[in-house]
């Protein structure tokens, strides 16, 4: 048994690596730039002028701290034309654009030259001091200068993010017009011309054939995935040591956030599964005891219908009926406590009494989900077992019906029930997203829902990986419990 357990745990490792890879793959394809999001959360957002100085430096540091200046994975598969140090470009959109341009041209040197010239142009256009110009030339108003300058800045900015030939040509024309019609922009003509030559060179010296030859780049251990998984020894400790990173919403460590919320979901699923067993086991026993009676037939039909009823419909119906001023206002609509009344110094009993009305409807909905399923399994399992030879033997040797069912049959019909029990582990970390959303229960489910709405990917992929891990633990626990319940099963 011990040997078997160890063997099973060892098979976790490749599976976990695969799951973490899937999670990571999803997260790097996520839209948006985490650094922008985090600095927005910290209140560092300002106009373009203010951003240039201090906050840019903060962002750079943040990028470094999050490890975003590193390559994504140990290796990458690109084509011969691509640049293997492209990850050093900080802006996500610039990076994507450079990749697209390079795909068109195949000549990385020309592309990077074009990019550098564009950056120079952007820098020069930003350095323009509107006040100076107005002071020197009285004919100009501050508004016109600012407008022209902003227009020019916008065109450069969009050039940095587009690879479509037609758009690039249009932008060039617009900038040309701006430069010729405004004398104070005339010094930008030279860098603009350089950009244009670089752009032409990109296609004149194109080496498209290079994009058809695959190339493998090797980056080694200093990459985002590696650091996310095992840490870098400096800022991060890595997933395997319990450091899940920080949330993009508020910068809090994800481990803390999960630790606070997980108990609510875990408690709810524990209580609801316990209740589901409490109801469905007697139903199963009764059905087997009175097989094919009218009650049994009616019950199995009802169970079937309940089984097809989506739990989010049931939850909403409960709200509609029992937490609605128009019908019956027995229970509060949402949350698990009333913040105006709740006092954290209360005794356990007081807390429980206060929370109970909030929890009744969610627990019913939670229970409902597994109850119908479990009852059907129990019924089928019991009926199957009652018709077997050893039950007939037990009856034949004169045992009472109660003893036959409870002692001989029940134990054997528990196997499928264990399978359901193993689902409790992932349920605790994943929560039931839909039910917690309906009743606004601040557990893991609602947390994931909010993370999704706010694109908080570190949270999502952490939950993703952990629930994969816990599912495997659940399967293992179930398999071991099988052996405990059923002596015929042994893992030797």
């Amino acid at each position: 048994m011990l040997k078997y357990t160890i063997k099973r745990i060892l098979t976790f490792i490749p599976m976990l690596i695969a799951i973490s890879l899937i999670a990571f793959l999803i997260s790097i394809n996520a839209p948006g730039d985490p650094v922008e999001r985090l600095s927005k959360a910290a209140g560092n957002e300002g106009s373009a002028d203010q951003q240039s100085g201090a906050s840019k430096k903060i962002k750079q540091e943040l990028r470094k701290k999050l490890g975003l200046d590193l390559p994504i994975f140990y290796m990458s598969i690109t084509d011969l034309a691509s640049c293997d140090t492209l990850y050093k470009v900080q802006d996500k959109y610039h990076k994507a654009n450079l990749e697209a341009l390079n795909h068109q041209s195949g000549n990385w040197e020309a592309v990077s030259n074009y990019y550098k010239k564009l950056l120079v142009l952007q820098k020069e256009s930003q350095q323009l001091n509107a006040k100076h110009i107005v002071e020197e030339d009285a004919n100009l108003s501050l508004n016109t200068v600012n407008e022209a300058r902003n227009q020019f800045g916008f065109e450069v900015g969009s050039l940095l993010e587009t690879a479509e030939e037609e758009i690039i040509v249009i932008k060039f024309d617009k900038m040309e017009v701006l430069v010729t019609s405004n004398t104070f922009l005339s010094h930008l003509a030279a860098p603009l011309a350089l950009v244009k030559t670089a752009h032409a060179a990109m296609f004149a010296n194109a080496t498209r054939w290079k994009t058809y030859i695959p190339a493998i780049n090797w980056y080694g251990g200093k990459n985002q995935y590696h650091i996310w998984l095992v840490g870098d020894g400096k800022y991060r400790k890595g997933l395997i040591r319990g450091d899940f990173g920080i949330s993009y919403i508020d910068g809090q460590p994800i481990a803390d956030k999960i630790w606070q919320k997980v108990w609510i979901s875990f408690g709810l699923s524990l209580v609801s599964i316990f209740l589901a067993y409490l109801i469905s086991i007697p139903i199963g026993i009764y059905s087997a005891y009175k097989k094919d009676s009218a009650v049994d037939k009616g019950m199995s039909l009802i169970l079937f219908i309940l089984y097809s009823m989506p739990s989010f419909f049931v939850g909403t119906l409960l709200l509609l009926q029992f937490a609605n001023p128009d019908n019956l206002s027995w229970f509060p609509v949402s949350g698990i406590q009333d913040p105006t009344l709740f006092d954290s110094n209360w005794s356990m009993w007081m807390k429980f009494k206060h929370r109970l009305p909030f929890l009744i409807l969610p627990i019913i909905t939670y229970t409902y989900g597994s109850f119908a399923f479990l009852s059907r399994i129990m019924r089928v399992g019991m009926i199957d077992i009652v018709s077997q030879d050893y039950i007939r033997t037990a009856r034949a040797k004169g045992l009472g019906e109660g003893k036959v069912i409870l002692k001989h049959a029940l134990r054997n019909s528990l196997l499928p029930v264990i399978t359901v029990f193993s689902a409790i582990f992932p349920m605790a970390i994943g929560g039931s997203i839909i039910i917690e959303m309906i009743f606004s229960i601040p557990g893991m489910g609602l947390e994931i829902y909010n993370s999704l709405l706010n694109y908080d990917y570190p949270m999502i992929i952490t939950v993703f990986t952990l629930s994969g891990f816990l599912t495997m633990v659940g399967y293992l626990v179930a398999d071991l419990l099988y052996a405990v319940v059923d002596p015929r099963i042994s893992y030797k």
Partner: protein
Amino acid sequence: MQWLTQEFLTNRIMQNTNENFSFKKYAWTQFKKNKIALVSLYLLLILVVIALFAPYIANDRPLYCEYEGNTLYPAFVADTRSDSIFNTEGKFVQFLQYDITDWRQLDLTAVIWAPIPYSAGSMDRYNRDYAAPGGEQRFKNPAGEIIDIPARFRHRLGTDGIGRDLASGLIHGTRISLMVGLVSMGIASVIGIILGALAGFFGDTKLKMPRIKYWLTLFGIFMGLFYGFGQRKYELAAGFNEGFGGGMWEIFISILIIIGVTVFFRLLSKPLQFGKLKEEVSVPIDTFVSRGIELLNSIPRLLLIITITAVVERSIWIVMMIIGITGWTRIARFTRAEFLRIRSLEFVQAAESLGYSSARTIFKHALPNSLAPVFVSIAFGIASAILIESGLSFLGIGVPDDIVTWGSLLNLGRQNLEAWWLIIYPGIAIFITITIYNMIAEASRDALDPRLKS
């Protein structure tokens, strides 16, 4: 001659009796015995009819009308259609844009409205803010007066907050729900049946090829992926920007490229087969597939789907694809088990010993005989696909806001509990559809495989 005819006749009779006892007929008779399942089947047919004819059942354009002496069939033309209308004397009356015209305001001499005279997305601005089914509803007549609603235009099932008719939303939601079931399970079946069949038929040892061919096949798949997806990244993106059809077409081309490149490398291995390179090695295809199933099963499915939908673009088609791509494991497991059983039966061994190719044995002989349990799991899968889609729309994830689905309607009801009709009716629609599929699945399991009967 007489003798021949008699033999011929006997044969005919034998065939007829055989036909009478064919498995399909037997299964159908068994299925028909289950009255509830039969009713479910008829209900499903009704749902299919509703889905097919949704635009003619619920439409705010009339099916037929007479306007200023012109006979028009507005519900049957394209949304973008526009006409200049001339009256009987040939005088210009109005420029009619079919999709934005409020047909109820026109002075129509004869008209046949659709049974539900509202489209799914169109907003009735006189009945905003959750008009109750039985409550007060307003209507603007062609004379321009606001009056109590005539019975013909009453929102029988009420409206939502922006005045969209619920009955119409339900009718169009039927279309989406059935399509979700069909498309996602179609994808899942193709993946599941192929992988399950390969894993079950070949196992870990039976698929053998020369070592060089094995290596070059793997290399070919890698190169195929590189040319098919890596190289065509921008073409694929451009295709999807055009619409779902464009994207699918580009994916189809990519898959052709992958197959082509793989085949090319396999052919390339022909002249290289000598010495050690020629030694036969077995491909552990069963291990690959089983590990894949195990991996996918160890991630909670709803979480996986939600996480992916959060990253990709919001589109109902992409939701269907994701549900399909994550839902093949059950089908693959059943197919694999069935193939393991069938592999050792006489007719498969006969086909093999006759020298038929593996592909022919699998697809022509083994597969038709292993589809029964697979069919059952597809039917159950459709029910759960519909459940997942409505759950996602209920959460407001994945499906765009402007598409009316049962789940999104139910979510509107949750946000405003006073509008009970937005909870009850969509909920019942979801519930009935899922029950129908579950009933059919269970009855066909009992009919197709009596061993599994419960």
